[in-house]
């Protein structure tokens, strides 16, 4: 039916009263590095366990290469899992761990030996073959887990937060290593993580999940640059949410928005909107420019005056919180020569912020729960509108 290699169709799964996944459909292409990204409890691990065969979905089917595998036990599926805890067998050596799958498949001893040697070479651990897992470092355990899965030449490799247990430096090295392995073996990866940076840097495509549903599927840049829901915008990177109404739509590409306390805001439009319709706008802090002097008025440039409320200097960049209208807007400024700036922007300084109309995004969906993330503190949300 489709060109999808691994396909979930309408998967639902509950654990007692908790609905972990509700009606999720998802297609993953052959050879793709696909990530399921979301906070803990969003259902991403359940999806992975459904693919591995550890959980039976309450509804829906799973297809691998066009074949329905929903009812197959884990050992009959051509998928292998890398567990968050690695789950290496503690009573076996590295060699026996890696060769486990082949030994179960009753392959000849000499062949197993050769295959394991090849894998040990791939993970550069030939000299550690006779060690037990508890003698290995976290990164080494992780590599053994990868080798133990890959040796079976699975159709899909399932990775369940494989880097979560590693420290930051090691995580970055393993990221590169996983990427290289993916390029080298060319099999399909389904990667589950709550870490947006991991997902962004590795994936061909990402599905952002929340509350057992998929919020958005797309390439990393798509998801970052044009988040469709408040959840995606806030989960991946920082953002400012502004609440307003559509004033008018100038042409097919741009809309003017009325946002209480701010001048009229021009925004890129990819939707069908009616004047007066309420709308939520998302602008990333690094898309907003900041200066003491009033910027030059330009077409498609939104300029807003404000006052600096907070400044955090972070070395390569500075975070500013600017009070503008009723809103508290976060701005991230990349420095190139901080001391040579005639006049660094300081606390309580009046200032101007501006951004291009293309850098703001109107959201399809704004969750009630994200109201706390609005650029105004929640108790004063209504303030500029009611004029109190």
């Amino acid at each position: 039916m489709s060109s999808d290699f691994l396909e979930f169709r309408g998967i639902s799964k509950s654990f007692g009263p908790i609905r972990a996944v509700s009606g999720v459909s998802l297609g993953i292409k052959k050879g793709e590095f696909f990530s399921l990204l979301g906070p803990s409890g969003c259902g991403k691990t359940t999806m992975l366990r459904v693919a591995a065969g550890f959980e039976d979905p309450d509804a829906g089917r799973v297809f691998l290469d066009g074949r329905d595998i929903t009812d197959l036990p884990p050992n009959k599926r051509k998928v292998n899992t890398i567990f968050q805890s690695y789950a290496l067998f503690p009573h076996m050596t590295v060699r026996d761990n890696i060769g486990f799958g082949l030994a179960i498949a009753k392959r000849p001893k000499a062949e197993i030996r050769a295959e394991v040697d090849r894998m040990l070479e791939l993970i550069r651990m030939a000299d550690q073959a006779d060690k037990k897992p508890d003698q290995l470092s976290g990164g080494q355990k992780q590599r053994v887990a990868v080798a133990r899965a890959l040796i079976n030449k699975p159709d899909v490799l399932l990775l369940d937060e494989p880097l979560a247990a590693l420290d930051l430096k090691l995580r970055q090295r393993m990221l590169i290593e996983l990427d290289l392995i993916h390029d080298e073996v060319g099999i399909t990866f389904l990667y589950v993580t709550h870490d947006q940076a991991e997902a962004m840097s590795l994936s061909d495509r990402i599905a952002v999940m929340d509350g057992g549903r998929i919020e958005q599927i797309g390439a990393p840049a798509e998801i970052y640059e044009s988040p469709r829901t408040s959840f995606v915008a806030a989960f991946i990177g920082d953002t400012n949410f502004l609440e307003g109404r559509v004033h008018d739509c100038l042409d097919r590409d741009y809309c003017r928005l009325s946002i209480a306390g701010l001048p009229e805001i021009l925004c890129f439009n990819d939707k069908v909107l009616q004047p007066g319709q309420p709308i939520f706008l998302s602008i990333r802090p690094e898309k907003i420019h900041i200066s003491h002097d009033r910027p030059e008025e330009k077409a498609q440039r939104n300029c807003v005056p404000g006052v600096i409320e907070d400044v955090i200097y972070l070395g390569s960049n500075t975070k500013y919180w600017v009070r503008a209208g009723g809103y508290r807007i976060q701005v991230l400024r990349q420095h190139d020569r901080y001391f040579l700036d005639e006049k660094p922007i300081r606390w309580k300084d009046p200032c101007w912020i501006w951004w291009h109309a293309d850098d703001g995004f109107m959201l399809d969906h704004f969750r009630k729960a994200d109201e706390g993330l609005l650029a105004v503190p929640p108790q004063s949300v209504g303030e500029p509108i009611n004029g109190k």
Partner: protein
Amino acid sequence: MGSNILRRRRTEWLVTLPTLVWLSLFVVVPTLLVFVIAFRPANPYGGIGRGWTLDTIRALATPSYLLIAWRTLWISLLTTAICILLALPAGYTIARAPARWRNRLLLLVIIPFWTSFLVRVFAWKSLLHPDGPVKRALEALGLAGPETTLLYHPAAVVLVMVYTFLPFTILPIYAAAEKFDFRLVEAARDLGARPFQSFRRVFLPGIRTGLVTAVLVVFIPALGSYIIPDLVGGPSGEMLGNKIAQRVFTDRNLPHASALSAVLVLAVLAPLVAVLILQRKGKKSDIIMGEAP
């Protein structure tokens, strides 16, 4: 630095001393006495004669003894095997049960201890009695004829021994299974193992500590059983423990009883030593010897 270590050594000795004295006085010395008496002749008044003799040891080689020794061994091995086979699924199930069920199930395992061991064995005696409910039920089902004997049979000994020792096997296996990381079983299944393969190749090695304890906890007391074969075994179910009692209380032949006891002590030590050696091989292995009786 050096004196510090010395002082710590001395403290350790002082702390351990009472235990060592106790063990030497009440375990090591009596055991050695048993070994010594085995080489002394008996006297007609039930005491120990003068001089030394090897006759008692030679007398152990008679076929009737060998038969009983063999029976003691196979009854103990069979009991151990059945206990382990029953305790494995039981311990596994309890360990995997939801937390609120776990304590209730464990309680069920422990409940038999609330009744005296002797009373429970007598209960079995009346259950298995020719006029008892089990025999009648079997007859009603046509599974037993009027001549079938349930009581006074080696099978009855095995049955009651399994009943007695089963809780002692379930507990260490449960304790090990409870600590076992069941994600390892998932990993094995994921790598192609069938349920039984993952059980045998990953779960069993994972609970090895508990298994060894369970085996020792059944096998060693089983070898020395006395009350169970005495009450439900009859002449065809006699074990070494019964013979020792007969030599002491009926024949009043202490050297003979000592010789039999010495054999039993050696038979009990053998599996312990075997485990110790295995342990050395598995270097910093975690088999808890302290739990072996």
